[in-house]
């Protein structure tokens, strides 16, 4: 729920108005956005993103049995926990020197594909679209809604809504047709997930060395029939998204600036190819490139690398505005990787978490989130990569890398082609996601619906491969392993909303160091030791405001659209404070709920 505290009437022109939304996002509401808005010039002057919640997984994982890591780290998130389990399994496989049998790998891929479909659908249609629904647009931009009523929807033949306003009405929460259908679809996609990984969202059948799923033919046909049930919804969703977002560009010239930042994207790759992957660090470059979502780093539209070893060695965890002490004087865990490359002290393998709770001060330290950066090779540039909410970076790197070539999904070098088969109502359809001009809120949102189609198309490929193995009688789904006394491992995966890495060090058969880096630390990071703002801050800062309301009844919808386009998990409790130019009272102890007052 959004609660809006009204400001005292009449703020002077040119005066900066402080506004905060805390908490936004992330299940227990640990993200806050603090802005200063210049209403006279209709711009956001300054933005800080802050987290008031300390998690401490890296602290309490120490000394635990490494085999438990997948089950414990799954609890990091209540919506994409299985991404952590999967990533942990990848890291453990490397540490134990094993690989999953092929059928187990397909089962894992099928589960993850269902997770992407489920999570993106529920986030896009039930949470993001609330910012674009008829009720919201009527409240914030009535002139845009009037125009939407007269604008024909170009893809009406696919989704059945005649005008843009009709689509927006279907987005209305609790009442709209799309909102309600999306809830049904996310139920079906969750069932698909449970068939493969046992339980949503903390899998019960995913272990290092394989899965415990019983690979009967029925498991796969049950999955396939559910997938075919939702395939038409996916086609319609893409058409609706295209219509609405194209309309926003047209109705509000300059809207491309909302949430826009330099193209600096990271994707750590998803869906292993069992024919190539052996989980050895030495061959990580080869099996990374064989993944069905290509890993990579894109800066200014140029693909810098697709090599997971480069990606791994470039990760730096910076401090600067975070409530932690530096760990540079601690003993390093990993000085060189298995290929002999030096590993930096600021790399997750060597990180020691030393929390120092303190008062929030936007001029000094103001967040529990650290600042993960990626050191551009050959330079001193610590890039504040974002994930574009996940799908945007995944499609971008996959399109540019031109490596993915499957019967249903093909990368072309500048686009990704996705073929979906005939469904109940709609014919066979080929969708094409082309690299857009900007990295902004609308393009991040648009990519999300295309990635649902991508995951659905890939799932078809995975089902065919898995059924092929089953028909040949190959039903092996797990591998024996022993936990070594000393080992290191790293796992790279894509959580639903972007990059995910797990770094693991085992000593005396126990976890000596474990650092999961999910997407939100990348996206929601504060200013680092070089003063570089994190992606949320960067995207919102200097952003124009298109909302027609003044400071008295300001909803901040443009800022919300910008921040939510990064998919900051669950924007479940958004509270708003209108300060009318007054300085917020700085009584902050870093504690959840302190601004609810």
């Amino acid at each position, binding site marked *: 729920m959004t609660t809006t505290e009204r400001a005292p009437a009449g703020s002077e022109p040119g005066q900066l108005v402080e506004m905060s939304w805390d908490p936004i996002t992330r299940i227990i509401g640990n993200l806050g956005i603090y802005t200063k808005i210049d209403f006279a010039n209709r711009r956001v002057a300054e933005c800080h993103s802050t987290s008031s919640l300390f998690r401490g997984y890296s602290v309490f994982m120490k000394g635990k049995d490494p085999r438990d890591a997948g089950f414990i780290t799954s609890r990091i998130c209540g919506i994409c926990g299985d991404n952590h389990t999967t990533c942990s399994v990848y890291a453990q496989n490397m540490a134990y020197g094993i690989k999953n049998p092929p059928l187990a790998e397909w089962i894992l891929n099928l589960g993850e594909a269902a997770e992407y479909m489920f999570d993106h659908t529920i986030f896009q249609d039930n949470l993001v679209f609330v910012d674009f629904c008829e009720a919201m647009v009527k409240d914030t931009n009535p002139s845009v809604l009037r125009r939407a009523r007269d604008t024909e929807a170009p893809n009406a033949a696919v989704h059945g809504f005649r005008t843009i306003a009709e689509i927006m009405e279907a987005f209305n929460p609790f009442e709209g047709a799309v909102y309600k259908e999306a809830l049904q679809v996310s139920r079906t996609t969750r069932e698909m997930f449970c068939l493969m990984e046992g339980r949503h969202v903390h899998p019960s059948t995913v272990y290092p060395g394989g899965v415990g799923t019983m690979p*009967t033919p029925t498991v796969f046909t049950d999955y396939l029939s559910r997938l075919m049930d939702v395939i038409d919804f996916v086609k319609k969703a893409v058409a609706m998204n295209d219509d609405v977002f194209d309309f926003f560009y047209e109705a509000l010239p300059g809207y491309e600036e909302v949430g826009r930042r330099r193209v600096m994207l990271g994707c750590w790759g998803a869906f292993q190819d069992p024919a190539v992957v052996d989980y050895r660090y030495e061959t990580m470059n080869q099996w990374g490139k064989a993944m069905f979502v290509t890993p990579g780093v894109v800066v200014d539209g140029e693909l810098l690398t697709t090599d997971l070893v480069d990606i791994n060695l470039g990760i730096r965890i910076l401090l600067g505005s975070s409530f932690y002490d530096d760990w540079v004087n601690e003993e390093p865990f990993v000085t060189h990787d298995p290929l002999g490359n030096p590993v930096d002290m600021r790399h997750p393998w060597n990180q020691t978490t030393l929390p120092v709770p303190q008062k929030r001060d936007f001029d000094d330290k103001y967040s529990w989130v650290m600042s993960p950066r990626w050191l551009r090779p050959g330079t001193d540039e610590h890039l504040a990569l974002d994930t574009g909410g996940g799908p945007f970076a995944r499609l971008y790197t996959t399109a540019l890398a031109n490596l993915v070539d499957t019967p249903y999904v093909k990368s072309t070098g500048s686009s990704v082609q996705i073929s979906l088969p005939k469904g109940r109502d709609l014919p066979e359809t080929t969708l094409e996601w082309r690299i857009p001009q900007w990295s902004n809120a609308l393009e991040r949102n648009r990519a999300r619906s295309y990635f649902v189609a991508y995951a659905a198309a890939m799932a078809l490929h995975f089902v065919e491969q898995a059924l092929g193995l089953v*028909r040949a009688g*190959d039903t*092996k789904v797990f591998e024996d392993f022993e936990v070594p006394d000393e080992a290191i491992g790293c796992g790279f995966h894509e959580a639903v909303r972007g990059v995910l890495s797990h770094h693991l060090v085992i000593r005396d058969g126990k976890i000596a160091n474990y650092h999961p880096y999910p997407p939100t630390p990348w996206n929601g990071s504060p200013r680092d030791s070089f003063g570089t703002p994190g992606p949320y801050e960067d995207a919102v800062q200097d952003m124009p405001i298109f909302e027609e309301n003044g400071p008295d009844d300001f909803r901040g919808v443009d800022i919300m659209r910008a921040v939510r386009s990064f998919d900051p998990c669950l924007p479940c409790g958004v509270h708003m404070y209108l300060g009318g130019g007054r300085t917020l009272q700085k009584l902050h102890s870093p504690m959840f709920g302190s601004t609810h007052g």
Partner: protein
Amino acid sequence: MAEIRTGKPDVAPDTPSHTKGVRQGNEKSAYANEVGHHEDGTADSRRSTGIRPKKRDPILPVMPNLPPG
């Protein structure tokens, strides 16, 4: 010892915590010890049942062996 009066124990202290002959899931080469699982990744009906398993294998050798559970 605290001065708590207790009765005669129901269980003899030498009761084994493990019964011989029963496989433990955590032991080494668990896969090789699982009945019905073959080294090449295939399986037979012994994986699913101990009751006349051979009668439940496919009737022709070209057919894949897909035990139900």
